[in-house]
C-alpha cells in the first residue's frame, strides 16, 4: 500500500497503535498464566515499529509507521515452589509468566494517547480541507 496523503499516514499509524494495544491486552490477559516448564511459560510480546517513507519523502516529508513484526521479550519466568498446584512439575515448581503489569499499563496508556493524537490530527485536517473546499463562496 502506497502513501499518497495524510489519511494514509494516519490510518497506518492508527493501525500500528492498535496492534500495540492488542499486544498489551494479550500480555495483561496472560499476566497470571502458569506453565509447567520455563520454556512453556508466557513471555510478554511487543510490536516492532518501523518508519515508512513516501517515495518523494525528501520533498514532501510524508512518512508513516508500520509494524515489522511481533517479538517475545527475553525474560525469565518466575519459578515458584507450589507442589500442590495441578500444573507443578515433578520437583513441585510452577513457572509464572514474566509480564510486568505496571509496564503494560504504561504501554497501554502511551498507545492510546498516540492513537488519540493521530485521530485529532485527522479531524483537524478534515475540517481544514472542507473549509478550503468552500473557498470563495
Amino acid at each position, binding site marked *: 500500500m502506497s502513501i499518497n496523503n495524510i489519511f494514509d499516514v494516519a490510518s497506518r499509524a492508527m493501525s*500500528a497503535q492498535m496492534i500495540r494495544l492488542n499486544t498489551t491486552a494479550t500480555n495483561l490477559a496472560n499476566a497470571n498464566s502458569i506453565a509447567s516448564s520455563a520454556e512453556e511459560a508466557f513471555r510478554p510480546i511487543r510490536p516492532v515499529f518501523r518508519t515508512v517513507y513516501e517515495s518523494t519523502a525528501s520533498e514532501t516529508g510524508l512518512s508513516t509507521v508500520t509494524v515489522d513484526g511481533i517479538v517475545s521479550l527475553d525474560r525469565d519466568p518466575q519459578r515458584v515452589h507450589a507442589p500442590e498446584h495441578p500444573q507443578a512439575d515433578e520437583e513441585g515448581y510452577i513457572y509464572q509468566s514474566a509480564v510486568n503489569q505496571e509496564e503494560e499499563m504504561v504501554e497501554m496508556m502511551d*498507545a492510546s494517547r498516540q492513537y488519540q493524537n493521530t485521530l485529532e*490530527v485527522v479531524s483537524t485536517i478534515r475540517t481544514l480541507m472542507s473549509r478550503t473546499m468552500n*473557498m470563495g463562496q
Partner: protein
Amino acid sequence: MSVIRDHLATHANALTLREQRNNIIASNIANAATPGFRARDFDFTSALQQQMGTGSMDRSHNAHFATGTPGQMQLGYRQPINPSLDGNTVESAVEQMEFAENSVRYQTSLMFLNRRISGLARAIRGE
C-alpha cells in the same frame, strides 16, 4: 490575469506551505513511537520568501541564476528538548503545539483568501 494572481499570491503560497507543514507534523506525530525516528520540519518564513522570490537571495538582474527552486523547501531535523533513549526525537507536546499553531495560521490565510476573493467578486459584479 496576472494582477488577480498577484493579488492572491501571498496567501495562496502561504496556504500551500501551511498544508505541507501540517503533513510533515502529522508524519512526526504518526512516528511518535518509532525508535530512531527523527522529527522533521522546515522554516516557514524562509520557505515562503523562497516561493515568493523575496528572500535575501533575490535576483536583482535577469541574467543572475536563481537560488533554489520555488516549491521545494529545505527540510531540517528538529532539535529535541529532552532526547529519548531510543533515538526518537518526536516530542508529543512540541508537535501538538506546532500543529495547533500551524492549523490556526492555515485558517487565517484561508480567511484572508476568502475576503480577497469575495472583494474581487464584489468589484466584478459592481455592487
